[in-house]
């Protein structure tokens, strides 16, 4: 990653820590929106514009409104200090979980962030080459979509995505039926 990428990653981490530590719920929602801005930029920089546009629509638009609607239904505790106290046992568990996830899922060799060129899983010359190579070579001919990630999400596993949409819709209908109300807010 470039200097731009590292600065952006620092921005995202700072917003995430601030979101976790701030005491006032409204401030947390505002900071979470800032976190979403950074993530969308990072996705875009990593050449995943479709994920970036989703993060823009969901993170900055829908989530903020939904969280705001939620805190109107609840009471806000009075906040004297800006930051809440850190729960050290919970923080230790979170850091341990993050370390385990990074070591298990870390398909990208850590040296690559510092300029290394170790091939990642699925790159040419590694065992996953056949699968990745097929999608990279044939996705445009088969689906007519330029971006391979978008082709996989919206075309190859389009039925799966449709199923997810059905699940979300069913959940919304169930909430309306249970609450006996015709509107969500």
């Amino acid at each position, binding site marked *: 990653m*470039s*200097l*731009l990428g590292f*600065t*952006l990653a*620092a*921005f995202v981490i*700072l*917003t995430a820590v*601030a979101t976790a530590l*701030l005491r*006032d719920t*409204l*401030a947390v*929602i*505002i*900071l979470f*929106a*800032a976190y979403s*801005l*950074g993530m*969308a*930029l990072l996705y*875009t*920089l990593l*050449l995943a*514009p479709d994920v*970036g*546009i989703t993060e*823009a*629509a969901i993170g*900055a*638009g829908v989530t*903020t*409104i939904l969280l*705001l*609607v939620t805190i*109107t239904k609840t009471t806000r505790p009075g906040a004297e200090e*800006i930051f809440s106290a850190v729960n050290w046992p919970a923080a230790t568990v979170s850091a341990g979980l993050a370390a385990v996830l990074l070591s298990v899922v870390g398909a990208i060799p850590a040296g690559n962030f510092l300029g290394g060129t170790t091939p990642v899983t699925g790159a040419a010359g590694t065992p996953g080459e056949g699968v990745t190579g097929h999608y990279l070579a044939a996705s445009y001919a088969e689906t007519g979509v330029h*971006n391979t990630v978008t082709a996989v999400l919206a075309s190859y596993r389009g039925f799966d995505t449709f199923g997810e949409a059905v699940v979300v819709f069913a959940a919304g209908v169930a909430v309306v039926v249970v609450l006996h109300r015709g509107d969500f*807010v």
Partner: protein
Amino acid sequence: MTLAVPTLTDAFLAAAAVLVVLAIAVLYRAVVGPTMQDRVIAVNVLGTNTVIILALLAVALDSESFLDIALVYALLNFLMAVAISKFTVKRGDVI
């Protein structure tokens, strides 16, 4: 030893990097506050910053699809600021 000549792409990327550094500076105001109005303005500035960075990236990396994301953000950033402001002024009545 010859120095690499900086290209226009490098210039655009450097400008984007400077804007990200400035975004971290604005983040200080968003975190510390002290009032909610400060935070709303700070996040609004961050959103405008993001739109400009996306536009610079679109030029530097030569991919027009980034401009679509910039447009989405320009629209939603406005919506977010209005929603938070409305909540702050008239508590408990967002929509």
